[in-house]
């Protein structure tokens, strides 16, 4: 059987022209600038950078504009772009203790060194629409208050617990331990925590949110407390071989979440709190929290727990967290499947014919009985 496989070029060209027109919308309305998106839709930009797995605010803003605000499509554009660039190497590990903090809260300690710093948060807003923002022109901004900052250190809450021996400690690897990299080797199972965290850091916020939520509702329950969330700028350092020393490339904004969970202990080790960790590009608190819940759930084996829930199933979670892969496979269904479907049609016609042949006699018998 021959099937037309060419054609549609003109339709596609015209469709893309139409897309460009619809993207622009009413030309009486000013066009969006990339800088406007980067400055005023910074949380969207953060999400595209996290899920596109590339920190570059102006690129993410461009992707959002091109994708008409479709953030998964925008992340897709970013992932495609990054494949065109050479990799210079790996950074030195980021030190979130040296963060220039813009927000830092703990739900486990009221008074802690460095204090509770609310920063720019939606928390405690009333979620009422602010129609002043809908008015044309600039909204008069209230002047932001300034206070004399404390100069003391702002230790991570997990360190406070660790000092007392109450927290399961971070394990340092051998010096020559290889760090898994999903952009170099396809994901395989079982996956160690380095691969899991990389996968979650670029995973879909909605998927991780739902999984984290499921663990709170009892599917793989682990009694979480937000030990600490911090958001701010951290320097990225890179060891330049030809220079023989590390250079500071600049700063990136990160959200870090330390989720403290109930105990693990055994005959060999004393009871301790356990934790999940979330680290995400940009101000992405929901994602960082969800990531830390899922990270903790996936550590069930380490702590000798039972695996009873979807959120604990490493293969299930990691194989479905990537929204670029997911959208590719789901959306490919709309591409032409004419040949496949022809085969299905023939099959269903044959099945029906067989069925009618087999049941032809029965109907006559039934009619006769009536």
């Amino acid at each position, binding site marked *: 059987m021959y099937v037309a496989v060419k054609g549609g070029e003109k339709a596609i060209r015209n469709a893309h022209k139409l897309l460009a027109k619809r993207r622009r919308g009413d030309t009486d309305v000013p066009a969006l600038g990339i800088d406007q998106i980067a400055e005023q839709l910074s949380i969207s930009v953060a999400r595209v950078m996290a899920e596109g797995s590339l920190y570059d605010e102006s690129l993410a803003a461009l992707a959002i504009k091109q994708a008409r605000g479709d953030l998964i499509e925008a992340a897709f554009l970013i992932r495609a772009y990054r494949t065109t660039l050479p990799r210079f190497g790996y950074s030195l590990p*980021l030190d979130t203790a040296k963060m220039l*903090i813009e927000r830092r809260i703990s739900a486990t300690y009221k008074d802690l060194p460095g204090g509770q710093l609310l920063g720019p948060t939606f928390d405690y807003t009333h979620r009422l629409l602010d129609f002043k923002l809908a008015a044309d022109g600039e909204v008069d901004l209230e002047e932001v208050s300034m206070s004399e900052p404390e100069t003391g250190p702002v230790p991570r809450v997990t360190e406070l617990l660790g000092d007392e021996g109450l927290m399961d400690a971070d394990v340092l690897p051998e010096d020559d331990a290889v760090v898994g990299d999903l952009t170099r080797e396809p994901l395989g199972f079982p996956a160690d925590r380095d691969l899991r965290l990389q996968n979650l850091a670029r995973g879909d916020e909605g998927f991780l949110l739902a999984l984290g939520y499921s663990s709170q509702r009892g599917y793989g329950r682990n009694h979480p407390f937000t030990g600490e969330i911090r958001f701010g700028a951290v320097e990225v350092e890179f060891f330049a071989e030809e220079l023989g*020393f590390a250079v500071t490339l600049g700063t990136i904004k990160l959200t870090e979440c330390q989720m403290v969970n109930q105990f693990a202990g055994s005959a060999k080790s004393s009871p301790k709190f356990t934790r999940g960790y979330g680290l995400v590009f940009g101000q992405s608190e929901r994602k960082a929290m969800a990531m830390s819940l899922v990270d903790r759930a996936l550590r069930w084996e380490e702590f000798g727990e039972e695996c009873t829930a979807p959120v604990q199933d490493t293969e299930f979670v990691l194989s479905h967290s990537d929204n670029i892969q997911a959208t590719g496979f789901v959306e490919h269904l709309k591409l032409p499947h004419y040949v496949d479907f022809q085969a299905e049609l023939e099959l269903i016609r044959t099945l029906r014919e067989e069925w009618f042949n087999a049941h032809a006699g029965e109907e006559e018998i039934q009619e006769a009985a009536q």
Partner: protein
Amino acid sequence: MSKEQPYQDLNMPSDEAIANRQKSMAILAAAPVETLTRAFENYADIPAHDIVRAPEIGLVMARGRMGGTGAPFNLGEVSVTRCVIRLKTGEAGSSYIMGRDKKKALQAAIFDALWQNPAHHETIETTVLAPLAAAQEEERQNVRAETAATKVDFFTMVRGED
């Protein structure tokens, strides 16, 4: 010249020299594009130089640590532009800068080379790096002050007589 020279010393910069250069490169990298360009255009005397490695855009995979202090993992990439130039007087200047601005990478590499040249070092320190560093510190201080104003002051109510 039969006397054997030890391999080290001669060309190896001291730890302090490296630390100073790291600091100066970090200030250049953190400078906003417009500010750096203005500093470059205002710099009276940009000498002739060769491009050793033209500005090139690439990626660095940023690593985090599990739990903040544990084993490293790959968090995601950052875009980076790097460039190497050489002055006629021999100093090689480098830049590694987040983002994709080739002009900024070139200008930072030239400043880095000039910083290493004794005839330019002081001028670069005082007219280029010092104002950039001051502006960057002021910006950081503003963030700290704005954040500090959002610190929660808990107060406790005293009930009863004592």
